[in-house]
């Protein structure tokens, strides 16, 4: 009698997984050569395929200069800034669920976020401290690029894009600063925008356009909210894309010194 061994659940599962991997849906999702399709065994070819056959290829080349992965050269500051940007986007979207940008509702929404929303306070803390940290990392990234001379040809344009990104980061942080609509936020923004008023010729007009009136009011809140959650992220994503693209087109990371 042929002993038909009863298959264990694990074997059944593996068999089912194998079927899925050979199915059309799976093959439609993953490109030929993708490690999700062909499996990953450590080999130089597969190491290249991990990058080449995935979305990562838009971000990283297959190989980089050996000195470029030394932590002491980049301190990972650009990567940290990008990671913080993603983290701020995610936490920011969560905060948007509970936030109405009208003067009547905003402060009670903040209180509700602190007291009733699951993880509301933690997510707000992450968002706020992450934003401060991002300003710091972007700034330090600029310093690192200067000290390594990475702004020199052929990377002049990427340095300019980087300065734009620094200014956009500051603007994002500043527009977000108003949104809690407490004494700290409103008066800090008042002080900040008072400086703008001193610009020659167009100072008053710029301040009026940004505040939606001569002083901070309900229009300011809505305006800065829109800038903070929609307009500035939209612009900064474009500049980040150009920045990353140029890093590769200009020959990867700079150096070695």
């Amino acid at each position: 009698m042929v002993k038909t061994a009863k298959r264990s659940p694990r074997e059944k599962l593996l068999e089912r997984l194998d079927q899925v991997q050979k199915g059309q849906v799976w093959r439609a999702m993953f490109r030929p050569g993708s490690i999700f399709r062909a499996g990953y065994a450590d080999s130089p070819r597969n190491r290249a395929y991990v990058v080449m056959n995935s979305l990562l290829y838009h971000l990283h080349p297959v190989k980089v200069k050996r000195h470029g992965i030394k932590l002491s050269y980049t301190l990972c500051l650009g990567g940290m800034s990008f990671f913080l940007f993603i983290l701020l986007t995610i936490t920011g979207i969560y905060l948007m669920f509970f936030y109405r940008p009208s003067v009547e509702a905003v402060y009670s929404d903040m209180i509700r976020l602190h007291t009733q929303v699951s993880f509301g306070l933690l997510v707000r803390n992450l968002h706020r401290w992450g934003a401060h940290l991002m300003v710091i990392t972007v700034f330090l990234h600029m310093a690192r690029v200067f000290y390594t001379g990475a702004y020199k040809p052929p990377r002049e344009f990427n340095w300019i894009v980087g300065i734009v990104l620094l200014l956009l980061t500051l603007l994002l942080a500043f527009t977000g600063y108003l949104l809690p609509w407490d004494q700290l936020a409103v008066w800090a923004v008042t002080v900040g925008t008072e400086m703008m008023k001193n610009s020659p010729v167009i100072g008053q007009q710029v301040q009026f356009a940004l505040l939606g009136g001569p002083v901070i009011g309900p229009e300011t809140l809505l305006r800065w909210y829109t800038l903070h959650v929609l307009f500035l992220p939209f612009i900064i994503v474009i500049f980040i894309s150009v920045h990353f693209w140029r890093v590769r087109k200009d020959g990867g990371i700079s150096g070695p010194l």
Partner: protein
Amino acid sequence: MPTPDEVYEQILKEESDKGSSPAVAQGRAKAARVRAQRGSTNPNKPDPSTAPAPDNVREALGGAPAAEAQTQPQAEAGEQPKAAASEPSDRAASEPSDRAAGEKPKVAAATSRPAASRPAARPSSPAPTKKAVGNGAGPAVPERVQRLLAVVKPEAIQKVERQPMDRVNVWPHLMAAEFVSLLVVMALLTFFSLGVDAPLRELANFNQTPNPSKAPWYFLGLQELLRYFHPQVAGVTIPNVLILTAFAAPFIDRNPSTRPDDRKLAIVLFTFFMLAFAGLSIIGMFFRGPGFNFVFPWEGGIFFEL
């Protein structure tokens, strides 16, 4: 007639005089030597890289489909001899041969792919053995099958003469480092957020100005400057000049070197601005009390919230 080695030396010298890189010069000289060898062993046969030489073409890829593409070289008689010859590649699969049908070569058409046109039973070329016998004195040059795919003008070729460099795979070397730093940042930020709450003061009240009123910390350097200069200068001129200088920095600093030793002035200037900005910001954060007047934080307390 010069021997192959003489040709090699001659071409090498010519190329060096022209200023080609050593690798390019050597490659061209080697190619010339191979051409000279072929010419000397079999003078009846034209150079395979410039004229049709079907018998020199060997079935290079065995039974692979690409091998059927023994495309006859398409060099025009008047073309210059610098024609770029290339080995059979799988790209050749789209360029099947019509030689079996006795037609003149033409560029691939999808309809001409049937196996009938494949010259399967062709005897392979006797050339390699002949060469080995007839050219015993010269250095052994491995037989390379070359086939003309296209004639490209030399100006049209992008010469990438990049120095070879020590490179590592992004996966796993770079991505592992990135992932670790991501985890570290996330962990630190999470612990900090669990421990320290973001400030939320009472509802905004436009009739009650807090004393002191401070800008967000990244603008406190500017607010500090306002204590020393006219608002036009501190709030407008200085920041704008700084931004414009930053934009123009790569064009102001024409020094091509990236070595710290070579750019002391740039580093000193940048460090000076960094320290000045940091110093002003720290004074603005911790040393300014009510009325934005100077206080020592250990005496008057800290009037600063993030």
